[in-house]
């Protein structure tokens, strides 16, 4: 049976249950609900502090009517960051490497921001299609370009997350295979490659967090334009 490096992105089944289901339910287990006690346990305290700071920082540029999105953004951020980081553990499966999942997040949320903009302030929303101060001959071309860039936003959101995580995982697997194969032949080169692998893993941890953050940040920017 031919195996390839892309096999790590196929969700395996055990007893008919796909691993992607377990991987997607795991963040729910890792974030217990705060109780009504005055002081919660350490895990909940740390998590609520982080989530509170993040939501505060995200909601600062939005006006008051945008604050209804706070729960959605905070929970999506926690979900994405947990899934990305858990995917870096050995043998685990990362659901966000599946384009279907990321597009499932990107398209409805982007569409919601566009529809809100068109419903509440259609003039301003359409006005975004033409930047201020463009020379008159350029106007038709620019409107077409801006419309295309508007419609490409959900695609870019989804593909950005997928591509970053997929590329990271592939690189880790490739370089790890290289280290493994080089070890009996040229140990010095293998140690060098192993240090590259270590640095790459650190990068992947950062990328996992940053990509989740960028996803939410861009959505909040799209919301700011349209709210």
């Amino acid at each position: 049976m031919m195996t390839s490096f892309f096999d790590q992105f196929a969700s395996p089944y055990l007893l008919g249950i796909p691993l992607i289901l377990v991987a997607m339910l795991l963040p729910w287990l890792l974030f217990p609900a705060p109780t009504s006690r005055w002081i919660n346990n350490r895990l909940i305290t740390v998590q609520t502090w982080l989530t509170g700071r993040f939501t505060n920082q995200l909601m600062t540029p939005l006006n008051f009517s945008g604050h209804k999105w706070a729960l959605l953004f905070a929970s999506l951020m926690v979900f994405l960051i947990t899934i990305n980081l858990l995917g870096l553990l050995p043998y685990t499966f990362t659901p966000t490497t599946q384009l279907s999942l990321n597009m499932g997040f990107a398209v409805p949320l982007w569409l919601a921001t566009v529809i809100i903009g068109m419903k509440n302030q259609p003039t301003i929303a359409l006005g975004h299609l033409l930047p201020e101060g463009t020379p008159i001959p350029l106007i038709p071309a620019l409107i077409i370009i801006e419309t295309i860039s508007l419609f490409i936003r959900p695609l870019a959101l989804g593909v950005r997350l997928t591509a970053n995580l997929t590329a990271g995982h592939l690189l880790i697997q490739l370089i790890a295979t290289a280290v493994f194969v080089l070890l009996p032949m040229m140990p010095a080169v293998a140690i060098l490659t192993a240090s590259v692998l270590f640095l790459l893993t650190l990068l992947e941890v950062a990328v996992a967090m940053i990509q989740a953050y960028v996803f939410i940040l861009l959505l909040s920017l799209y919301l700011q334009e349209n709210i």
Partner: protein
Amino acid sequence: MADKAVSLAEKKLMDVKLGQLPAWLGTRDFTPNGVVRGIRGGYERYYNKYINVKKGGIGGIAMFLVGYVVLSYAWEYDHIKHDRWRKYH
């Protein structure tokens, strides 16, 4: 003095003798509701023993994550076993 006789259904798993295991499994509730209650009960026991404590450390989460890694390995074993002594990867 002999302990009070406890029926098989009421015993915890650790108290069941190996020969009684199939019979004990027969008394458990495997309906969807029962499975959900079982998972929730297991989660609550783990949470209250290792995480919801005054000075919970990294051990509670670390054990959970190691268990997740082991579970993922078991899930992917059918695929990974081909990698063991391959000549070309």
